[in-house]
């Protein structure tokens, strides 16, 4: 019986490609954000609101990741920004190579902010670096205050938490203070925004921060 020692990270290939993506973003002055959430939390709605607010101010492009359909790309295309749809055919997360392939179809010189919408899933996308500057996790008020504790990997790896659908708060039993406490217990560095895509509340704060972050990231 002979044993061969390997000691290699399983995701090393993904991480290498992610680093190449990151270098590409840096050399073009692009702020890339990876938006993650469970299905239906409002990722696409927040991206639409962001495009509506920043579309005339910044050069924004979008990569849409979905298991099936290009519905989201169609929604985003209405804002007249470059958008590439990745269909994973059942795959539960985006990988760095898929993003790299999508970038080939994009004119990077014409991009300042790249929004990557991941597949709706609070588990798998946590561990796949795409080369983004940060992960933005969206959690809607209907999902309950316990989600950060149930999905610590995602909340630990994210830099920003957007609590969405705040317009529904009068109808829900969710404890918003507890949600914030749980999220910060998992990740004390999380920056938290509260938004409603129905009323537009909080969108200006979020977009203002994003714009400032891009200006400072150069």
């Amino acid at each position: 019986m002979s044993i061969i020692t390997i000691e290699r990270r399983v995701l090393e290939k993904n991480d290498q490609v992610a680093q190449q993506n990151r270098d590409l973003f840096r050399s073009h002055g692009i702020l890339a954000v990876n938006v993650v959430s469970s299905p239906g939390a409002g990722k696409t709605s927040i991206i639409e609101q962001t495009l509506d607010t920043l579309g005339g101010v910044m050069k924004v492009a979008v990569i849409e990741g979905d298991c099936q359909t290009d519905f989201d790309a169609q929604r985003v295309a209405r804002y007249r920004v470059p958008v590439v749809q990745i269909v994973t055919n059942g795959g539960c997360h985006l990988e760095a190579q898929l993003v790299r392939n999508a970038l080939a179809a994009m004119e990077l010189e014409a991009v300042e902010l790249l929004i990557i919408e991941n597949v709706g899933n609070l588990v798998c996308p946590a561990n796949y670096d795409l080369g983004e500057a940060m992960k933005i996790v969206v959690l809607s008020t209907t999902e309950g205050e316990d989600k950060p504790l149930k999905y610590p990997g995602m909340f630990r790896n994210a830099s920003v938490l957007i609590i969405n659908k705040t317009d529904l708060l009068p109808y829900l039993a969710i404890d918003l203070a507890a949600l914030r406490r749980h999220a910060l217990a998992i990740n004390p560095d999380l920056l938290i925004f509260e938004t409603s895509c129905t009323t537009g509340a909080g969108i200006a704060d979020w977009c203002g921060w994003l714009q400032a972050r891009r200006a400072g990231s150069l």
Partner: protein
Amino acid sequence: MHELSIAQGIWDIARQHLPEGERIQAVKVEVGLLSGVVPESLEFCFEMVVSDTPAKGAQLIIDRIPIHAGCRDCGADFQVEGATFLCPSCRSPNTRVTAGADLRVVEIELADTKGKAS
């Protein structure tokens, strides 16, 4: 359900270290508890991924790595229990995960090839 692509990744790495003509009887991996991988699902996917390879039937030995963190304020090292990353010594939330987030292929064990002994 990203265990399938993780299983594929494990095999991709293992086969690069497999000498020509040899077969694998076991692959040892470390799965961090923060990695989001379900071990049972990984075993199932691995069996499927290697079914047509020199690692067919190989055992996947999974070493589950607990989550460890270090406190940035008081310097304590501790094991993360449950879902709290608070430092047990000084109660600071300002901590850094030092182990348990990774997935690694540790080693492969080659099968005894028939005829080699004679």
